[in-house]
């Protein structure tokens, strides 16, 4: 990855090595997998000279490495239960507190759920599927997760099962500053359909790292919605890696509102023909916060369609990064890919970094990308104010309009209402 000699380790790098050395004996599962993964970061964290981390210099931004979270106590679990979001839409089906799966509800017919801790203990066959979605194992966020994770969830949706109600996976942080790792594998068998809501909330200056893998077989229909609304002091590293079979349908929407430093990585691989994916995201930053969305779409099959739509709203001195790459392999003829990224900059001091990339090896494809950065349209603002709407309210209306088409991709009305509440909350918190 990089060959730069770096004799001095940062505090975070030193602490990570110490933690891994101390913890590896007690971490479950195959030790060699953890050793290999940790090898990617043992020399140090990625920095701005590594292209994928150019705009999010993890080495400089990660000031320390917090200790691994201890098992949550009863009080923490109760507090987490009470604070999990989306209660009106769906109570948590799986509750993870500080990375540990503490509650697993009854699954609907056709869904099987196993805790990752138990899967490690039983040497569950699904563990062999880890990494199958094809995300790079030497990516720092993935490597750290693989090295340290000890709990999470394995979900299987059996062939043909149509799961109407969404499943809510709630990741809640409680207590003082810790590092929490969690991993989820979602296996959707042929012809099945599923909607998953993933929520990340909690209080405290924690470091969280989640890795969700989706393996969707042929003719599946999957919707993944994620809200990242962690404490404004957290560091949130997250990876969503997905592999799609033929004639499948995928919709994802990521709303990023919390954290001091957050990086959401999304990897999609089209493994079968005639599949469609709609990938959407909103990030709301402010203060000194740094939000990153990094997307890699791998068109490796015939006649697939991808739509990428990402919107960022920036305020204060915040920085928001979106880098998206669409790769069209030589055999992926008739690919139709369209990526749009737009940033709305509300302040003088904010910075938006948008990097769209297309890499195309097939000759019969339609691909497009666009990127825009703009302030609020003064004429729109005047029109609303001339009708009596105060400036801040008028701005709020225009900001909500800016992200409206991304919100529209969330079909569940109740869920959409909850997201409106999150954006409303962000708007109210503006100076």
């Amino acid at each position, binding site marked *: 990855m990089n060959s730069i000699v770096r004799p001095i380790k940062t505090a975070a790098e030193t602490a990570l090595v110490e933690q891994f050395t101390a913890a590896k004996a007690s971490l479950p599962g195959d030790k060699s997998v953890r050793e290999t993964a940790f090898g990617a970061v043992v020399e140090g964290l990625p920095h701005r000279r590594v292209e994928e981390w150019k705009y999010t210099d993890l080495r400089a931004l990660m000031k320390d490495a917090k200790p691994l979270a201890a098992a949550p106590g009863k009080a923490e679990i109760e507090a987490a239960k009470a604070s999990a979001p989306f209660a009106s839409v769906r109570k948590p089906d799986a509750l993870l507190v500080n990375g540990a799966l503490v509650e697993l509800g009854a699954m609907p017919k056709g869904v099987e759920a196993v805790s990752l801790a138990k899967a490690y203990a039983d040497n569950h066959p699904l563990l062999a599927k880890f990494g199958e979605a094809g995300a790079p194992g030497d990516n720092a966020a993935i490597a750290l997760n693989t090295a340290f994770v000890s709990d999470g969830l394995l979900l299987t949706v059996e062939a043909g099962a149509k799961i109407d109600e969404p499943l809510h996976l709630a990741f809640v942080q409680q207590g003082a500053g810790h590092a929490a790792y969690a991993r989820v594998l979602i296996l959707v068998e042929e012809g099945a359909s599923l909607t998953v809501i993933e929520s990340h909330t909690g209080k405290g200056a924690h470091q969280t790292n989640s890795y969700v893998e989706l393996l969707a077989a042929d003719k599946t229909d999957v919707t993944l919605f994620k809200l990242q609304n962690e404490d404004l002091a957290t560091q949130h590293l997250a990876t969503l890696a997905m592999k799609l079979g033929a004639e499948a349908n995928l919709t994802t929407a990521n709303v990023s509102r919390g954290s001091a430093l957050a990086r959401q990585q999304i990897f999609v691989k089209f493994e079968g023909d005639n599949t469609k994916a709609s990938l959407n995201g909103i990030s709301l930053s402010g203060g000194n916060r740094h939000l990153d969305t990094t997307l890699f779409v791998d068109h490796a099959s015939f006649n697939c369609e991808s739509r990428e739509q990402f919107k960022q709203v920036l305020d204060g001195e915040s920085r928001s990064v979106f880098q998206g790459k669409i790769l069209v392999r030589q055999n992926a003829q008739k690919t139709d890919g369209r990526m749009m990224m737009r940033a709305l900059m509300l302040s003088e001091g904010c910075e938006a970094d948008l990097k769209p990339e297309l890499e195309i090896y097939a000759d019969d494809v339609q691909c497009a990308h666009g990127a825009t950065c703009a302030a609020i349209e003064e004429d729109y603002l*005047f029109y609303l*104010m*001339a*009708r009596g709407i105060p*400036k801040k309210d008028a701005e709020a*209306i*225009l900001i909500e*309009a*800016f992200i409206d088409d991304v919100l529209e991709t969330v079909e569940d009305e109740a869920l959409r209402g909850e997201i409106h509440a999150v954006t409303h909350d962000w708007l109210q918190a503006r100076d």
Partner: protein
Amino acid sequence: MLSIKNLHARIEENGQEILKGLDLDVPAGQVHAIMGPNGSGKSTLSYVLAGKEDYEVTDGSVTLDGEDLLELGADERAAKGVFLAFQYPLEIPGVGTMTFLKATLNAQRRARGEGELSTPDFMKLVKKNADELEISMEMLKRSLNVGFSGGEKKRNEILQMALLQPKLAILDETDSGLDIDALKVVSEGVNRLRSPDRSFVVITHYQRLLNYIKPDVVHVMSKGRIVRSGGPELALELEANGYAEYVEAA
């Protein structure tokens, strides 16, 4: 009602002076038409009255019922009863027309210390006024002015005026882009709102609109000032002779 004295205003960006000592008095209940050639400052006057920030007032005063308007922001002026019907109503994708109408009405009511309107009362009020302007409820479900025809946009402006019931309505070339039928609908909408405690400033190039909205006074504007005022017959004279004499004289 509206009193403008020696108003000077320039474009903030380049300092170009547009209004050069404009005087205008519009008593309550009256309709005043402002006519004049292109570039005489008619639209600038409407923006300055509504509080657009691109213009800087360098001298003079504007009061509405004795209250200084120039000290107020655009939203505060609206709450005091100033309404500008835009020459080019903006299309704002993602802002639902109904959401917008409700936000404007309730913002003004709040600013005046009145309670917000309940949703059923609001719907009833919109329906009644929309029907009179031949605006379908279907149209109001769309984003604000997005995909509206020129005539629909102008009718939507008049609908907003009818809902907000301003003290002073400024119509900036409301007739532009309208066919005869739409012109009638819009004019009738305006005429329904005429009342002893409401004043209108109607900006137009053409006498045609004034056949439908009968003015009490007609002013001719040229090079940033009112250069002549008269009765409705002045509009007919302008229609016959054009603006050439004012362009040269001023």
